């Protein structure tokens, strides 16, 4: 029974992943550059030069790679590189990302196989508060926006 449950959860997880992958393709072009209203109020920007390399233009953005400004995410700095192909945002990579991690330290992962897993499910229940990571995403949006501002055709 346990094996069947595990198999089922793997199938569900894969199905979810396919849905997400599909959504991403659909949503990629929706990113709107230059909307100043989205700028987080309390982030500061390091004086890193935003750079771009462009080729041809066939869509909303000019094709090429664009490096966003380095933005203080309070726990560290975030800087992204956006890649535009056929006028659409096709890839975002992180050039700088906050990390408290030290290298070459091993953690015991023995407990891992015993922990329960599930596919996440959205809810619309009333809550008194919401816990989530916010700072990093605000800095991400700011750096990505700086990159996409350069890509505007």
């Amino acid at each position, binding site marked *: 029974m346990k094996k069947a449950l595990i198999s089922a959860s793997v199938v569900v997880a894969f199905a979810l992943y396919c849905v997400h992958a599909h959504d991403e393709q659909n949503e990629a072009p929706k990113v709107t550059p230059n909307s100043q209203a989205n700028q987080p109020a309390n982030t500061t920007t390091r004086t890193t030069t935003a750079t771009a390399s462009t080729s041809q233009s066939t869509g909303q953005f000019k094709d090429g790679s664009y490096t966003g400004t380095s933005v203080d995410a309070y726990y560290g700095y975030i800087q992204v590189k956006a890649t535009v192909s056929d006028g659409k945002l096709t890839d975002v990579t992180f050039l700088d990302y906050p990390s408290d991690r030290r290298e070459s330290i091993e953690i015991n992962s023995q407990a*891992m196989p015993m922990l*329960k897993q599930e596919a996440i499910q959205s809810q619309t*229940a009333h809550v*008194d508060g*919401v*816990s989530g990571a916010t700072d*990093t995403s605000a800095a991400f949006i700011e750096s990505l926006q700086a990159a996409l501002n350069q890509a505007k055709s």
Partner: protein
Amino acid sequence: MQRTEHIMGMPIIITTVKPTDGAALDAIFDYFRQVDARYSTYKPDSEISQINRGLPRAVWSTEMHDIMRRCELTTQQTQGYFNIERPDGQLDPSGLVKGWAIQQATELLHSKGVDDFSIDAGGDIQASGNGPTGPEWRMGIRNPFDRTEVVKVIGLRDQGIATSGTAIRGQHIYDPHDNRDLTDIVSLTVIGPTIYDADRFATAAFAMGQKGISFIEDLEGFEGYMIDKHGTATMTSGFEEYVR
């Protein structure tokens, strides 16, 4: 009643079940502003900025010594994953200061005779006493793939909940130090007796990648919920007792 102010680069939300004296809330927000003035690495006049320009340890404030001692302790407790030293050698204790400040603010509000309230600083929350609709506070865990949704509702009373993560969907996020793909884990939520402990352990556990949830499992009195890039969650053995 609820009041929000933007301090320390994030919204700080205080919710009280009963009507509360405005002066009491003013004192809490003032406290957060004092913390920001001392520990913000992007305020050139802050004590931490002065320390990073060479201020000798002998003239650091008592508060700074206390925070640095707590950071060292946390580094030891997390097998080195919690580290306030940046790659450029500068010190940044903000990963600990946030949870500690919420904790101190909670005690301050208690001392002013307020019992039933929550303090939320950028998604890290301490719940105190009764909630607005019952003996517990109903706290959501945000869906990292859709910020408008929650994936779990947790019942808390005199406990903290903290989430470390990326809140970014479907992108390649590489650890700049070794090019390891960090997107495997997008969100890690920790519930603990205080927001101070929940927050610092969530920060360290997230930096551990896949192994982070095992670290939380091994901590007495803490539970965790980790979400990976495929939308699969891994939870600690006692987590479901908090699910509502």
